[in-house]
């Protein structure tokens, strides 16, 4: 890949801005059947918790117009297994490894961050403070600026690697949330996590998901993600990873215009397993059409008019 796609997230350089969204790519093992993961700008693994999580009952997935809702419930093997089995395997691809860290209390977030950031192959922590799918011990990290601020601070104190905080869109004021975690020391933001949604089954008259509520992802949420990134971009000076309904190189360009410095592709992997290498390939054409040399020139350009 030519360096036109090279981007920087703080001190971390990515050869291209395309990486999977956490939870939509497992630990990468399945997609190796389709292509070599070293093509990607980085890899982001499934939300990792201190202990193993078995997740929510099924059905965990339902479709919505141009989107889907999920209530996986953070099923994952726990941080120690991730460190022992997944990270070493992933390191063969020579791309930055970003670990999405989840939890229910400050203590377990901090402990996961401590353990994972000590692994030399890990380049970055993405702090998942949104968790719409699991009971968060009554603490609303994702929607309360003060607790989000404190959590970020606590994790930053122990982390040896940069910490990006992944924001929940289910808030009145995304700018205040962003400012709170940046003040807490966040090195960057990942935006956005899923919106809370639900569906009903007319036959059973029950919510389709066993967990009732789920996280809405996919193209349907793209305009909301763009708006939130656009608003936050003007108020923070840390880089933003754009997420939400991306399915094409054109979408990536839109996220850059809104203020993103890199992007994650989630649900679209389910529709087309080759979507990320396809986007990487198409980006060159889109940059040509837009008359842009390096993609990072586009970051926040949507504000300049």
């Amino acid at each position: 890949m030519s360096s036109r796609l090279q981007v920087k997230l703080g001190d971390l350089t990515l050869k291209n801005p395309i990486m999977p969204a956490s939870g939509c790519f497992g630990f990468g093992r399945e997609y190796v059947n389709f292509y070599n993961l070293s093509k990607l700008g980085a890899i982001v693994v499934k939300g990792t918790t201190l202990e193993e999580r078995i997740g929510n009952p099924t059905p965990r997935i339902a479709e919505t117009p141009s989107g889907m809702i999920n209530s996986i419930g953070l099923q994952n093997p726990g941080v120690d297994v991730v460190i022992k089995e997944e990270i070493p395997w992933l390191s063969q691809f020579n791309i930055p490894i970003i670990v999405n860290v989840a939890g229910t209390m400050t203590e377990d977030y901090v402990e996961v961050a401590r353990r994972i950031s000590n692994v030399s192959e890990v380049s970055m922590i993405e702090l998942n403070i949104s968790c719409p799918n699991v009971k968060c011990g009554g603490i609303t990290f994702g929607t309360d600026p003060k607790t989000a601020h404190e959590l970020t601070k606590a994790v930053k104190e122990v982390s040896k690697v940069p910490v990006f905080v992944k924001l929940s869109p289910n808030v009145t004021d995304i700018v205040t949330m962003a400012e709170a975690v940046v003040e807490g020391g966040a090195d960057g933001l990942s935006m956005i996590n899923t919106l809370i949604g639900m569906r009903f089954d007319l036959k059973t008259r029950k919510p389709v998901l066993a967990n009732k509520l789920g996280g809405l992802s996919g193209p349907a949420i793209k305009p909301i993600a763009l708006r939130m990134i656009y608003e936050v971009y003007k108020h923070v000076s840390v880089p933003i990873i754009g997420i939400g309904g991306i399915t094409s190189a054109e979408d990536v360009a839109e996220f850059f215009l809104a203020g993103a410095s890199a992007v994650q592709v989630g649900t679209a992997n389910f529709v087309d397993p080759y979507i990320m290498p396809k986007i990487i390939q198409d980006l060159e054409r889109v940059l040509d059409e837009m008359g842009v040399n390096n993609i990072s020139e586009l970051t926040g350009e949507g504000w300049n008019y």
Partner: protein
Amino acid sequence: MEQYLMRVKENKEITDKIYKITLKLKEINRSLAQGRQNKLFSPRPGQFLYIRVSDVTEPLLRRPISIYDYDPDTTQITLVYRVQGEGTKRLSQFKVDDDLDVIGPLGNGFPYDQIATNAHIVLIGGGIGIPPLYYLAKELVERGIKVTTLLGFQSKKDSFLINEFLSLGEVRVSSMDGSIGIRGTVLDLITDRDKWDTFYTCGPMTMMKAIQEKWLNTAIDGYISLEERMGCGIGACYGCVVKVDKKIDKRGYKKVCFDGPVFYFREVIL
């Protein structure tokens, strides 16, 4: 597992709302699989295809459909599906010579390599769970294994594939309203004289639950093919898990798309 373009050779309604679609392998998705070997396409009975039914974002997700038959000589693959909602409706609208974007073959398939040639196998299918049993029956019969098939339908007008199974061995049929075969469920087709070594079943959850219960404390072995709502279809999203006996898998769950859709019948908690 690979992403393929398949050319539609036939797509027709064979009975009320049930369609048969025949696809011919056209090409591996090469644009991005460059430099990699053209993987051999060799589906096994019990595996499924994950099909994109729309080229826009609605409906968004692919649809899983089991393999009904496969002819390696012509690389033609046949599926039988029921029009259920928007996705299968769109599938039914594909015309001859259209191209279909499929991922597959996916899943583990029915295990039958270990079946002795003198074994007597029973296949138990209910409604739209019947199709995947056909490809299995063919493979078993080809190995000289004796197959009895029990088919359950709602009523005569919903029945299908009976003749196909008849050409492979004994077939017993039941229907809820008695309009074809005996009145009742497939379980009513089982008699005390039946001595089967292994069963394979696919159908409504209630049916498979009843079968599991009936034979749990007997000597018979058997396999159950499950359905679950899917995201990725390949094991990455944890969307399609099923509970399994913790004595068998310490995590207590397996993925229908990847570890299944076929499970040892004593293993899953239905």
